């Protein structure tokens, strides 16, 4: 059983290092995520892990605690709707709008093991006849190096590739390798992965036509959410589109965005963005 001091310590550590604003009701999450880490690192209990992180200057162990808590579930084409909007509304608009530069830049923030950026890459590869010779780059970032390593490898289990991935895409974009399934190298080349903490100043990462930042803001407190959303506004092109998670909202937060795509849309444009190209 995790001690109240350990709970307080880990919650503060997470808030400071990753912006993750959990409260004590998420004690079970600390236990389910940190008990395996304690065992793996040779500590008798989660409380011993707490003592070790608190009393030593072991930044690697500290990072492992943050990693264990921030690794989030993901799947190919998670929630489907954003990918349909991406394919049917946002990309057709960008094809007209970026006709001269023939360039599209996409950022998936908090991309975990890569299913989201690769889902976008698959949709774009399927539309390649409509955009021959276009320069398309997708950036996937996450705070956890371990998930980025898996994302770069592009190797997924049978369970992973059954979660949301249409079978025609499995046949077209994957090769079987023993018990696993490996993405083909053309698709992998469309996505670059980098480590990024959303709490840091990320204005250096460039400008994007589309940002996917889904199912991460829910873990932030209002102030952090406001800061991160403001910074995302700063790296989004004037006509750009921001996609949030199904249960996330910008209501009640001072932010530079307006909602687009109707009630089910859940995507946003910058306030004052130019109208879609017809």
């Amino acid at each position, binding site marked *: 059983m995790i001690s109240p001091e350990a709970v307080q310590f880990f919650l503060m550590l997470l808030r400071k290092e990753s912006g993750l604003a959990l409260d004590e009701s998420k004690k079970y999450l600390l236990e389910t995520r940190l008990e395996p880490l304690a065992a793996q690192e040779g500590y008798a209990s989660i409380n011993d892990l707490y003592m070790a992180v608190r009393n030593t200057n072991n930044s690697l162990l500290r990072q492992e605690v943050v990693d264990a808590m921030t690794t989030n579930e993901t*799947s190919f*084409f998670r929630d*489907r709707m954003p990918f349909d909007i991406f394919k049917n509304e946002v990309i057709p608009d960008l094809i007209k709008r970026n006709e001269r530069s023939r360039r599209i830049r996409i950022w998936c923030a908090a991309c975990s093991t890569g299913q989201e950026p690769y889902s976008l890459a698959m949709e774009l590869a399927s539309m390649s006849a409509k955009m021959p010779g276009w320069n398309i780059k997708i950036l996937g970032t996450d705070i956890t190096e371990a998930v980025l390593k898996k994302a770069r490898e592009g190797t997924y289990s*049978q*369970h992973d590739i*059954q*979660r*949301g991935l*249409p*079978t*025609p895409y*499995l*046949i077209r974009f*994957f*090769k*079987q390798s023993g018990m696993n399934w490996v993405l083909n190298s053309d698709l992998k080349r469309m996505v670059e992965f980098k480590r990024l903490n959303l709490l840091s100043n990320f204005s250096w990462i460039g400008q994007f036509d589309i940002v996917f930042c889904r199912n991460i803001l829910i873990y932030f407190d209002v102030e952090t959410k406001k800061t991160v959303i403001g910074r995302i506004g700063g790296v989004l092109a004037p006509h750009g589109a921001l996609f949030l998670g199904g249960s996330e909202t910008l209501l009640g937060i001072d932010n530079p965005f307006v909602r687009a795509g109707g009630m089910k849309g859940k995507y946003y444009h910058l306030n004052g963005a130019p109208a879609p190209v017809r």
Partner: protein
Amino acid sequence: MKILVVDDSRSVRRIMGGMLSKMGHEIFEAEHGKEALEQLKAHPDIGLLMLDWNMPVMNGMELLEAMKKGRDEGPRPTIVMCTTENEMSKIVHAMTKGANEYIMKPFTKEILEEKLGILGIHGEDNGA
């Protein structure tokens, strides 16, 4: 939606039927392809087949062939393979023969729901 679960394992039929029925669907069962054809004849409004590959009497591929031959008899239901066959060549073969989606066993409720979602089939509580 009326769904026919075709599998020679009673426990698979029970587990999958239970999941689908909780999603608000009406479930029919068959132990092999021949029985499935009889069920389809008796209930022409069955909209989806969850189809195993290896079964006695008439296997999944033979059923796909038989349904192809009898396609003039009415609209063909959507077909999702659900099988332990997990090689790419088998997946390609089944999709070429007319399957619309492919699930490899073992599967979870999430996999089942997401695969049906790909085909636009949602549970009644999902606002289908």
